[in-house]
């Protein structure tokens, strides 16, 4: 049983002429770390919204096809119900922190769900610990750096103990170092907690090393789906996604007939590959 299973999933926003996602066939297994990417407007955010119930509850429209989370159809389920199965972290840290202290913010979801106080406090401690923000518990959200705010947002989502976490461009507003940090945190959580992770990202150079799968969307459909080294070929470049620069280098070398078919995705891989060819 896949964690996320979509069959012929199609959604058209109310008032729109064409579907934003069309005929999506997707199966993501438990514990996988998948990257979702594609040019602006390709439907990535729409697909994510379907996963946690924002579509069709918050965003109305016409939904067709089938979507199952942990083997159960999402039809008829509210966003609040799905919140315990699919956690959602948004792009802008400022607009997903609600309380005047980090601790209360992490507890926010649990308060909403009516989780008994004892249990809630335990989960809050745990969530803060696994995201490394226990020392920030009494700070106000606006006092935190962008990276810390996103950690707090992740903790707030984890406290509800979903099996799946969806993150929509969480590094957009972060500087490069904080971006690398937070992706490291996300990868660690995926490994340690066996948390199925779907990460929407443009900055493929940072995230590729952690993912075992990259899904590329284009114009509402899934265009490519596979391990990063397979997906980062010519087709991906033509769709217009920003490949890791070392991968792009090999594309360029290949055009001059100077490199083989492999697509390295990290500095280490690229270095190894070059050394082999150069005989050093």
């Amino acid at each position: 049983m896949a964690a996320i299973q979509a069959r012929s999933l199609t959604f058209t926003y109310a008032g729109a002429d064409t579907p934003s996602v069309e005929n999506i066939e997707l199966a993501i297994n438990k514990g996988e770390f998948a990257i979702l990417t594609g040019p602006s407007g390709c439907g990535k955010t729409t697909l994510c919204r379907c996963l946690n119930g924002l579509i069709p509850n918050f965003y109305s429209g016409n939904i067709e096809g089938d979507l199952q989370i942990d083997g159960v159809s999402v039809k008829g389920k509210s966003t609040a119900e799905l919140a315990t199965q699919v956690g959602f972290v948004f792009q802008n840290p400022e607009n997903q922190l609600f309380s005047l202290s980090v601790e209360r913010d992490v507890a926010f979801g649990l308060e909403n769900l009516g989780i008994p106080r004892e249990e809630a406090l335990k989960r809050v401690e745990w969530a803060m610990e696994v995201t490394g923000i226990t020392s920030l518990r009494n700070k106000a959200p606006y006092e935190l750096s962008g990276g810390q705010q996103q950690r707090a947002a992740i903790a707030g989502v984890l406290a509800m103990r979903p099996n799946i976490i969806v993150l929509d461009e969480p590094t957009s507003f972060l500087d490069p170092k904080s971006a690398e940090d937070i992706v490291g945190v996300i990868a660690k959580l995926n490994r340690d907690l066996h948390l199925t992770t779907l990460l929407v990202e443009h900055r493929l150079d940072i995230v590729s090393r952690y993912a075992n799968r990259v899904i590329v969307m284009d114009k509402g459909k899934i265009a490519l789906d596979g391990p990063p080294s397979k997906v980062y070929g010519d087709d991906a470049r033509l769709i217009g996604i920003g490949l890791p620069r070392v991968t792009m280098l090999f594309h360029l070398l290949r055009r001059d007939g100077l490199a083989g078919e492999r697509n390295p995705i990290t500095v280490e891989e690229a270095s190894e590959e070059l050394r082999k060819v150069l005989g050093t």
Partner: protein
Amino acid sequence: MISVENVRFHYPGGPDVLNNVSLQIKDGDFVAIMGENGAGKTTLVKMFNGLLKPTEGTISVDGIGTDEKSVAQLSRDVGLIFQNPDHQLFAETVAEELSFSLRNFGFSEDVVQRRVTSLMNTLDLDRYSASSPFVLSGGERKRVALAAILAWDPKHLVMDEPTIGQDYLQKDRLRNFILQLLSQGKTIIIVTHDVEFVAECKPRVVLLSHGQIVGDGPAAEILTDSTLVEKSSLVIPQIAKLMRTLQNLAPPADIIDAYSARDFLASKLRSAATGSSEKRG
């Protein structure tokens, strides 16, 4: 020329945001101002058009101090494009939006019409001429905001975080557009922390940290300096990291993007190929 001399800035009763900053930007320069969040980058560029005045020191644009002119007057020469287009879009149509500043600056109506038409053409916005700016997508709104500032053709352009939220194709288009503007003789200053974008554009990089300039030089030099990069919450461009692992090939220190790396490696790979074919032969 934009000249910053020993500038110190703090809000009343607050700590120093900028301290002892000195900088010269010549006409036609391409400069990236980089640094961690809170380093003072946006504060600095807000001084170029007079929105903020230095607490100590002077800033002059084309020889005249910024305290001698109003923001409107300074904006004629220094166009400042803010990060979030939603903070400036307000008109009923895109055409109205683009006409706004021209009317503020007192251009006659037929000049306004002409400029707006030509601008929409250049930036591929014709089909949105009568649309409300609010129904456009994020990327399109950013284009409209850019057009709105270009409308009056300022000599110097400052862009605050132009790459946030943009996908690769949009960034590529932006890069080409910047090069076009540079070829027209404009000064371009971008505030950014997008290391790979800067690595591909290769401007002069001015690095701010905690309100002071800690680095000022070619992109290749600044972005490969580990100490500086670490201090400013940046990262070394991926290609530069790759080059470091290939030290025995003695790569030039200024390779920070894929194209230059390709050029360098191409020659090495060709000689390696002929070398091995010689051995076999």
